[in-house]
């Protein structure tokens, strides 16, 4: 049934720190690696070694430049995967019931055996979080690594999403956003986490933490005094040598 649950027991999701993300794309690769071998159909590639190679990805990293009215521009690397919206439009438009939101943890999933590949859910998602796999003809999207987070066969530290586990900068955090005391909720609270396109009314679960403001070049740097030239004019023996050499004929100065 593609009606949305009125309430979910937990609200699992990601918190993505735009201040720490270095744009290395490690999460993109680990997501592709994990998800092509596990839940559902593999994530196919088209012409991987040819011209215009393309493929299905559940997580992609954009890079933006923000130019404030004054001062220097700031580069922001911007990872984007499904935000597991509470008011997910992708679920209600689905004609087959293949798309659904789980009552127990709020994860939005696709039942690939029922999906007819009509693509309407990808049209309904404002974030570009769903991609129709060109080889399998079914809709693929981030599963919040549902096959890791509950997987007792994995060591405890691996029972988190693959992208979170991989990120070398610690820019991705996973947890229950309905629990105000969870680490992720605390992060959102203290750093002023925000929603993407709030005007769409999708109520995304995933939150983004803003980049901290950039240092200004105009401010005096702590190290600057240490980098000053120690002596402007040579003194002592070097001073005498400098003078003596100047007096010799043949100088250019």
């Amino acid at each position, binding site marked *: *049934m593609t009606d949305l649950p009125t309430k979910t027991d937990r609200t699992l999701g990601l918190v993505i720190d735009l201040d720490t993300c270095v744009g290395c794309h490690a999460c993109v690769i680990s997501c592709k690696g994990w998800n092509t071998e596990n839940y559902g159909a593999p994530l196919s590639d088209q012409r991987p070694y040819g011209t215009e190679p393309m493929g299905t990805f559940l997580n992609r990293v954009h890079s933006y430049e923000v130019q404030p009215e004054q001062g220097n521009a700031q580069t922001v690397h911007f990872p984007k995967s499904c935000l597991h919206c509470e008011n997910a439009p992708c679920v209600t438009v689905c004609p087959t019931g293949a798309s659904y939101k789980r009552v127990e943890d709020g994860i939005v999933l696709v039942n690939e055996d029922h999906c007819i590949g*009509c693509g309407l859910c990808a049209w309904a998602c404002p974030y570009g979080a769903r*991609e129709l796999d060109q080889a399998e003809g079914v809709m693929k999207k981030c599963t919040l690594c549902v096959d890791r987070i509950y997987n007792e066969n994995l060591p405890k530290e691996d029972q988190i999403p693959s992208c979170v586990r991989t990120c070398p900068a610690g820019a991705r955090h996973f947890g229950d956003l309905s629990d105000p005391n969870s680490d992720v909720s605390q992060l959102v609270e203290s750093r002023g986490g925000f929603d993407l396109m709030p005007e769409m009314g999708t109520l995304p679960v995933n939150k983004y933490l*803003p980049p901290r403001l950039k240092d200004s070049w105009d401010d005096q740097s702590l190290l600057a005094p240490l980098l000053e030239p120690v002596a402007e004019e040579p003194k002592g023996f070097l001073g005498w040598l400098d003078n003596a050499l100047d007096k010799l004929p043949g100088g250019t100065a």
Partner: protein
Amino acid sequence: MHPAPSVIVFSTLSGLGFGLLFWLGIDANPPTGLAAFIFFAIAFALAVGGLLSSTFHLGHPERAWRALSQWRSSWLSREGVSAILALLCMGIYAIDLIFLQIHATALGLIGAALSLFTVFTTSMIYAQLDTVPRWKTPLTPALYLSFSLAGGALLSGRVNFAILLLVIAAICQFIWWQRGDVALSDSGTDLGTATGLGERGTVRSMAHPHTAPNYLVKEFIFVIGRKHAQKLRRIAFGLTFVLPIICLLLPFSHVLAIIAVFSHIAGVATSRWLFFAEAEHVVGLYYGAR
């Protein structure tokens, strides 16, 4: 949005087909026998042909029956259910008229209502999408319904109704285009709200996630179509409305009637191509496009 040929064929043909079925269903003196056979054959060919073509773009057409299950929440599902019910009603109604010379008035009226409702559900698939501001308006159902009614009147030979409805459809189309051109900027969604960084300054896309295009870029960002949009709009307007109305106003001849019908069909197809090609999906913003 990528203008997929199968979807354009579908919405052009089945809109006309269900429009024709509507007029046949409410007809107080419907044709019988051979005449009825010809009219219903055309209507069913258009409606069913359109529906079949729409399954061509599915990843798994063999599972299409599953799309009938979610009518409580999904407009696409409602479209499927409504189309089947309309075709069933009108099929029985047609058999009665062709072979038994019986005019099942009530069945015809129900079938006509379902036919029109089917066109409405098609339009709602687009009009419900917040992600495509150009489509997200009650004018979209008005556009689809007026086109379908006008085309049906034209195909069923109702000259006066056809002229009146073509004028109404032309007005809907004109307003729809005018509103559409400012819909995205009026929606307030831009790269600033998409990234949540808009309050800090002007956001510019510096690097796409991958150097080559992907499914999202191919499906949602179609900028080639916009180059000739104004020219195509004039062509669509002339073919859909102006030429057919002139043909209908001239003294009746079969040649003129046929010109009117084919001009109208070509015009609707052009208008539908623009409907997709000009539509901006907000995902394009993430790629620095619109």
